[in-house]
């Protein structure tokens, strides 16, 4: 019963902060609300006993990616006055499109499988670092190595793109 209340509170808080990300006019506030949303999603991972993903989500998303976003926002020096706003018609259309997407997904998943299934999982060891490490370094080791190449490519690309070109300045 108490778990039920906790998960309902966490879920509604997640949706509320996600809505605030979209609705707030100030980009920096959007970033802060997004960090809170990621922390709440992390709490859901913990409730499903996915410990490794909970930690990785907190470090990578709430830590690294959001700080990157915040840095770029500070670098560009944006404020409320130059915030571009869409027209009313476009906003209304987007609301209808998103709402129907939500309804379609809910209807598609309504008749599927897991009504009433508790999140006490069958195999409690699944989300732990040991099990996932075993999987990652045996079955998915090729994908893991390719990931490192992707990261190097992203790093080089980011530095090349964001660098100032000296030739143009002179």
């Amino acid at each position, binding site marked *: 019963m108490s*778990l*039920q209340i906790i*998960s309902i509170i966490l*879920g509604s808080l*997640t*949706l509320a902060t*996600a*809505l605030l990300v*979209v609705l707030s006019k100030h980009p920096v506030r*959007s*970033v802060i609300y*997004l960090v809170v*949303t990621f922390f709440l*999603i992390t709490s*859901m*991972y913990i409730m*499903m006993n*996915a410990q*490794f*993903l909970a930690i*990785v*989500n907190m470090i990578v*998303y709430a830590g690294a*990616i959001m700080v990157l*976003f915040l840095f*770029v*926002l500070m670098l*560009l020096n*944006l404020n409320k006055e130059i*915030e*571009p706003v*869409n027209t009313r018609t*476009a906003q209304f*259309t*987007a609301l209808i*499109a*998103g*709402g129907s*997407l939500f309804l379609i997904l809910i209807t598609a*998943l309504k008749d599927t499988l897991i*009504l*009433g*299934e*508790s*999140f006490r*999982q*069958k*195999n409690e060891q*699944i*989300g732990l670092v040991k*099990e*996932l490490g075993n999987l990652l370094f045996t079955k*998915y080791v090729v994908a893991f190595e390719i990931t490192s190449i*992707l990261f190097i490519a*992203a*790093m080089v*690309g*980011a530095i090349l*793109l*964001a660098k100032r070109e000296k030739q143009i300045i002179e």
Partner: protein
Amino acid sequence: MQANMSIGTSLDFFLFVAIALFAIGAIGAMTRKNMIVLLMCIELMLNAVNLMLVTFSTYYGNGDAQIFVFFTMVVAAAEATVGLSIIIMAYRNLKSIDIDMYNQLKN
């Protein structure tokens, strides 16, 4: 009914939250014109999909989906880095982050 009894403790609740998060992210990606907020909405949608994958992984008692979530996070990190550096470069040229200005990228 079983569903009424178990709302909140069932895995359906996490599925519902994931679907709602995805819809909110999609609405944000369609409404906002700030390029950076748009990237943030895409991150929100990616996280919704991650949550759904973890839910199904918990249901089936199978770790493969959690590895997939790990790779999604890796790709999302790379995507955010490259996307933000493209935004910085475009901001230097255009002095704006309005997404309507970015149609000049095609030239």
